[in-house]
Each structure stands twice: as C-alpha cells, then as structure tokens.
C-alpha cells in the first residue's frame, strides 16, 4: 500500500511537472499569417458590401442624389404637359394681337383636348 501511494505521488509529480512545449517560430509565423489572411478576407468582404450599390447608384450620386432626380422628374412631367396641352387655337391669339376681335376669353388659354378626340 505504501508502495502504491508512493507511486501515485510520483505520477502526480511527473504529471504536474509536464509543461507546455515552446512552439517553433515557424509555427507562430504560420498562425499569424492565417490571422492576417482572415483579416484581409474580411476587409475584402466589407469592401464588396460597400461597392454592391451598382451603376444605378453611381449614376444617382453623379447627378446629385435623389433631390436632383425629383427636380428632373418635375421638369419632365412639365414638358410632357406642355407638349400635349397646347392653347385652344392660334387664331384666338392672332385676333387678340391684331385687335380684330373682341379680345381674349379665359377659355382661350385653357388646355384644349379636342385634337385628341378627333377620329382618324
């Protein structure tokens, strides 16, 4: 029994004295190279997220962002309206200018859609 206890104590001491090995410098360099590679991968991934807006987004930024686009849209709609809704008739204007008639009526300046109703 005494012998067994002594053996156990020796084993405990032997186990306790067992230290961790000193890693080779080459291993530490490999480990840090992996860490650097992971950091680099993450930087690339983060850059990809930033650049994922595409050419539409780039175009938008080039013209001044959404405020500029709302101005463009308003101008476009206004242009279309002017194009389609011309004044009633040039004859009315001519009469006014040449003073051959009684003058303008409010209706002369209202948009005229008659041309759109003509069949043909």
């Amino acid at each position, binding site marked *: 029994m005494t012998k067994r206890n002594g*053996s156990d104590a020796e084993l405990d001491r032997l186990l306790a004295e067992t230290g*961790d090995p000193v*890693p080779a410098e080459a*291993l530490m360099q490999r*480990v840090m190279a992996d860490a650097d590679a992971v950091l680099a991968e993450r930087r690339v991934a983060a850059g990809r997220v930033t650049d994922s807006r595409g050419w539409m987004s780039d175009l938008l930024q080039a013209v001044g962002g959404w405020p500029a686009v709302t101005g463009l849209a308003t101008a476009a709609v206004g242009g279309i309206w002017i194009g389609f809704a011309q004044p009633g008739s040039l004859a009315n204007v001519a009469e006014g200018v040449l003073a051959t008639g009684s003058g303008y009526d409010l209706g002369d300046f209202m948009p005229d859609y008659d041309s759109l109703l003509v069949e043909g």
Partner: protein
Amino acid sequence: MTLPFDARTEFSDEALLVAFGIGDRAAAMELAQRLVPRVLGYATRLLGDRAEAEDVAQEAMLRLWRISDEWRQGEAKVTTWLYRVVTNLCTDRLRKRRWVDIDAIPEPPDDAVSAQAGLEEQDRQAALAEALQGLPERQRQAVVLRHIEGLANPEIAAVMDIGVEAVESLTARGKRALAAALAGRREELGYDEA
C-alpha cells in the same frame, strides 16, 4: 518552467478574441502567444507526433480566427472551445491512422525500451509520453486535460461532450492504467522501490 510566449496582460482571452473580431491584429498576436503552446502541448500528447500536432494547432487557431467575429463574450471560454476543436481534430487524425497506416501508431510502453538506470527528467517525460500513448483515446484525453492541462472536471465534460461522472471515471481509470504502465519502469526511471 519559463514560457517565453506566455505574455500576461490584463485582458481575458474572450476580450482579445472579440478585439481581433473587429480587426485588432495585436489581439491575435497576444492570443497566439497565450494559446498556441497549450494547444500544441495538448495535441502532442494526444497524437504522440510533434509535426502532426503543429498542423492541428495551426488548424485549430485558424478556426478560432474565423469564428472571432461571431464570438460573444460570456457564452463560453475560449480555451474550452479550443480544447474541444483540438480533441476533435486529433480524433479524426487518429481514426485515419487506424485505417491508413497501422504502423504509425505508437507502440505501447514495454520493459525493453531502456535498461539504463537513473534517467534524467527528460527521459521521465519521454516515458510518460510513451505511457500516455498506450492509454485508450478517451482516457488519454481526460487524463491530459485533468492532470496536465489542469482543467476542472465540468470544463473537461464540456470539452469531451460527456457528463462529469464520466469524466471522473475516465480520469480515474486512465490514471490507474498510467501508473501501472510506469510501475514496471520505476527503477529504470530513477525512482526508489520504497
């Protein structure tokens, strides 16, 4: 024993890992200095092969770097997670060895290794390493984690994914087997037959 890579700082492993996760390279260097010696030592004792253990240590650390941006402090200990990864990597390698190259399995200790009396400490450690290789794999893991790495039984249970009672049983049986393996070499190792 002086551990040149053991740089003591005020930060926990978990805090350093989170710091690396947000891009702090110096945190990775500190973690590597703390953890690689432990990981390497554990893997060496499980595998009995330094070169293979270095590959395992590198792979385990790479997995740690990769998980760093998802790590949440307070959920787990870095060392527990790392020991678990190393255990699994070593188990995989030992399984492959069984099927691929049966000659690569270290021989269990026998009395004919050396008849030289009064071996130095280095030889005792070599004898211990040899005796550890003679243990069944799970006993070896439990004994190394408990008696060499100094983990508490609940932490070993988390590493090995078993209950605490199973850990106690494995360490007790493993230590008995280890003592028996070394008993025949007491004189050779310079111990008195008191």
